């Protein structure tokens, strides 16, 4: 029991250390550059305590729950030998985690505003709503597809470099064709799709698959799923901007 408490205390210290840079940066700018008093000091202390506790719990849970389940499922699929089910699972994981992602919902709403102001769609709430929903489903579909492509790559042992470069070339081509207003949002959408829960799960899935298939190296084949998931949304959002 005592040992568990010491371990908990140690990881809380670790979390505090992770958080220290932000506190220092904000403190420095507030005190020396902006020269303003810090509002609501007590709230900030309590909030920081929550962040430290939260980060500690999250990392504990990561190693107890998210990593093991991602890997055990990868193992089970590899042993079952059904590629079709594995790919369906990969698609569901990508699509399901993205479509409800709060950051994506926010970006899609902003994009619909840009489209309305830019005259691409009618400036009414209904058409903006349908534009933003369409965009969300497009991005979620593209992330699902990305995980499928990434899993196929692990199964077949394709080299990642050429696939990513191919993706880059497609982004460049789409940039030349897509309406100018959508480009900034399209580029950003690549980054917002991968949430805090998705990343550990998808990473564990990739590494688990690469370790349970003969001839694959978990380091060079296991990573790379997230890379696809942040590339395809850029291409698909620009395509969406051209079609709608």
């Amino acid at each position, binding site marked *: 029991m005592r040992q568990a408490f010491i371990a908990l205390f140690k990881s809380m210290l670790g979390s505090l250390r992770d*958080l220290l*840079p*932000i506190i220092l*940066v*904000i403190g420095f700018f507030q005190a020396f*550059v*902006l020269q303003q008093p810090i*509002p609501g000091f007590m709230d*900030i202390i*309590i*909030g*920081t305590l*929550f*962040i*430290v506790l*939260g980060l500690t*719990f999250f*990392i*504990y*849970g*990561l*190693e*107890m*729950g998210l990593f*093991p*389940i991602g890997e055990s*499922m990868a193992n089970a699929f590899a042993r*079952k030998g059904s590629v079709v089910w594995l790919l369906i*699972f990969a698609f569901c*994981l990508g699509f*399901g*985690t993205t479509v*409800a992602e709060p950051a994506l919902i926010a970006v899609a709403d*902003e994009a619909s505003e840009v489209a309305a*102001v*830019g005259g691409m769609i009618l400036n009414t709430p209904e058409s903006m709503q349908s534009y933003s929903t369409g965009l969300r489903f497009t991005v979620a579909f593209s992330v699902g597809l990305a995980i499928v492509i990434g899993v196929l790559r692990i199964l077949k042992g394709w080299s990642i*470099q050429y696939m990513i470069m191919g993706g*880059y070339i497609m982004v*460049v081509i789409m*940039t030349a064709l897509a309406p100018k207003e959508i*480009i*900034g*949002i399209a580029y*950003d959408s*690549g*980054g*917002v*799709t991968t*949430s805090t*829960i*998705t*990343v550990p*799960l998808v*990473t564990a899935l990739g*590494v688990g698959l690469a370790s349970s298939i003969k001839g694959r190296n978990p*380091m*060079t084949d296991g990573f790379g799923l997230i*890379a696809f*998931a*942040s590339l395809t949304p850029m291409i698909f959002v620009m395509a969406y901007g051209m079609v709608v």
Partner: protein
Amino acid sequence: MEWLIRILQMIVDTSIDVLPIASIIFGFQFLVIRRPIPNLKRVMFGFVYVLVGLSLFLLGLEQALFPLGRLMADQLTNPTFIYGENGVIPDVINWADYYWVYIFAFAIGFSTTIAEPSLIAVAIKANEVSGGAIGVQGLRRSVALGVAVGIALGSYRIVTGLPIHYFIITGYIIVVIQTFYAPKMIVPLAYDSGGVTTSTVTVPLVAALGLGLAETVPGRNVLIDGFGLIAFASLFPIMSVMAYAQISDYIAKRSS
């Protein structure tokens, strides 16, 4: 009491966000794989820890850091801060006047990335898989450095109004060249680190900075110029992680 209600509210919200993932995982586990999960009790506890941890983390951020960070982004981009109380805003702006913004962008990019939970997850996994060859801290710091440079450069782009795709395409060319020279084992991890950096902590603060800049710099359009910082923050870590591997490789070769 009020805090307790807030914590519960946050846990409920986070659970709703996590519901689709959980149902996919357990759905496939029970309907397709049809095998008991090893250590089911432990895994369940792990899920609860992740949920509670993430809720507390988000609540703390909303309580302490986000309001302050947003306020600071607002104040730093405010013309009265940059040109003084009675300063005149020039017609043609000089990008160098915004030096505090770039310094803030760099510092906040670095520090938020260090605290990013999904990056911690990937770093732990990479350390484990590489048998310790890739250090958890080394990877996190090099990613954070990449994000810092990316956001500072992205702020410069918003101030000057240069088209975003020039920067991104140049970045792609550098990534492609680096790919040929970097050690093979780092390449997939480096590509991944582009996507993992921008989540819970970084996105809200960085978005506030971008929108603040685009709103106050004369001649910029919020809707067009306000975006793109996240794209910079997901491109530059790819370069910095490969550079980190190249440099450690070089040092190891020289000393042997």
